[in-house]
């Protein structure tokens, strides 16, 4: 908790989007086939598309939520 992680992953699906809040995405990390849910606040990115690959800086919130604080394409 509170640690910062870097996650390199490809966006597979947008599970939920709420304007002004952000999105819950299902991504597949490099070297894995399992999908993971991540939350990307709207302030971090507005235009995300399925299939794009990002390197995400994230923290693990309470309850195990992967909260993306910054990202960039790679």
């Amino acid at each position: 908790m509170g640690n910062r992680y870097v996650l390199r992953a490809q966006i597979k699906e947008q599970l939920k989007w709420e304007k002004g809040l952000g999105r819950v995405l299902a991504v597949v990390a490099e070297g894995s086939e399992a999908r993971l849910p991540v939350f990307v606040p709207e302030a971090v990115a507005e235009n995300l598309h399925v299939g794009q690959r990002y390197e995400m800086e994230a923290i693990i919130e309470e309850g195990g939520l992967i909260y993306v604080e910054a990202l960039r394409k790679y």
Partner: protein
Amino acid sequence: MWKHYVNISFSRSQIRKNSDARDRISRSRNREILDGSSSGVVYPKPHGFGYIMRSSLCIYVVGFFGVASVSAQGGFPMSGQTPTAAQQPAQANASAPTGGMFESNTFLEMANRVFDPSSDSMDFENGSFEWKGKNFNLSEQRAFRSRFERFLLASPTEEEEQYAHLMADILERLSVSNNTSDDAILDTWELLFRASRFDLDGGNSTIVANQVFNAWRIRKESRGVSMTQRELQQVRQYQQEVVANRAMSLQNIRERRLRETSAGQRDDGEASSDGTESVTSEAAYRMLDLAETEARIIALETQSAMTGLQAKLQFQSQIVSFMLQRRFEHALVLAGFYQAIFKGSHQSLEVGKDQLQEFLPGSDLAFTVDSMTFIAREAINDVNKGVEAVNAAYKEDRNLIALERLQEVFFLGEYLTELNKIPTDQRRHMLDLYRGLIEAGELAQAKDYDGVSELAVKIYKLAEDFPKNRVLSSVETAKSMSDMAVFAASQYRNLGDIDKARSELQTAINIWPSNPSIREFQQETTKLATAGSQGVQIFDDLYKRMDRRGIYERRMDLGFALAEDTQRRPLLMEVVEQVARIDLLVNQSKELVKQGEAYAAWELLVEAAKVDPSDGPMNQARAELAPRVADFVLQLDLAERQSEAGHNAGALAAYLAAQDIYPVSRLCRQGIQRETEVLMSGLRVQE
């Protein structure tokens, strides 16, 4: 040439007419059913049973309240389904046979036609037998049957043959072409006493002989009267002469007195007056004698006329009587004697006009002895032809026709020896057939369908022209209708509609009283009623333990017991619906497993577990399937546990993992949606 109007109206009158009327009604009803225009009770067509049964089978009765009627449609039971709604399919399908009396009546009509061995020309309702437009008084049916059976049991005898020869001889002797002298007639008359010794004659020849003798005696008396009349006429002539002489003497005296008066009128007035009175008184007495003689002559003339008329009337009356009794030979014999005794101008019948009008309805002919002779000869000829027709039909194995014609012939020629041309073995065969038909008719009236079918087969062996298949078909239809009514009664009973159940049961009994299904229904109902008395306690115990399966398995008994319990009945319905749903899901799951859709099957079991996680059959199915879907189950369980722990992100990850295993999973889709919502709402709060 006999030109009498032949009018054999095949009446079996009222029965046939009534049957036709009922046919018309039946046809009309069938049309209404086909058009759907019947506003009253719906009477299904006979073949409608199959349709209704197919529909009824779709009900798939799993519960007391018809809840499973939906299950058969592949959907889920509606939790809010009311008993009324549940009744609809049962009513729609099961009430069709209501008022099945139509079928019962149709069968009886058929039975009346097929099993009635009476000839068409016999009308036992009106007690008349119609032959060529002539009505004979038919005795009561039982009496006729008795005489007919006696005939069928009897065998022709030599004595009867002798009698036939004797009667033929008498008729031949009376024929106008033969010697009709007084001596010949007397010889013929003596033969009547020989004929009367035969049993077959029934003493009727004696009656004929007496009539003839009576006529002869009256004729003899009439001759005696004629002699007296001649004597009286001679007396009258004498008296007339005396009276005439007295009148002449009186006239002479008066003339002499007148002459004497002119000479000495004053002295002899009183003396002349006395002489005149004396002559006048004697003449008056003679006049009285004459009048008396005249009266006696008139009285004798009247007596003579009356005596002759009486003899004639008695003769005529007996001829008519013989005709109405179908004693045609005796009518011919008596008519022969009548024609020999009375003059040709006395042939018109003066008596029995009312009876003859009834015998020959609608006829405005003048009835004569000759016309009676014609009818009698025609009847005898017709009996001859009828016997030939009966024998011909029998030879051609048309035994039913032979029996019908034989009855006509028998009734018309019951006292004629022509019937002896029917052989003994043929009579016995006809008797077997006759008794079989009567017995089958009685069984049909009692609605003993099994007995009717059995007899129909036997009758067919006796008469190949008997419509056996028609009978068997009608029996099967009637049985089916009764079964259907019992089925409807069961449905209504299970729905708690006792009145309708009773009505349907009554219909079933009316159609087929000995239907074994009725007994089964009654036994089942008794069992339910017994169980019903303990039903409340059982239900309360099971419900307290939430033993849904236990309640469901006793649903029939409990439903009967709680039919009027407004508090427990809805609870019972709810439980039955729940278990019915579990059963449906488990069954669908098994089907999916067979199709290789193990994950989909598991999802259905998960749905079932939500209804009652403790249900035995459902848990057994889960246990059997779990090894095949372990990876999927593992992720789902993890997701549920994470979700319960408030780790929504973890639950979401587990759902995603499970969805990767079974992408079309409904549980996963719903879980992902639900967990995502929770996550977003949490984040919103944080913001």
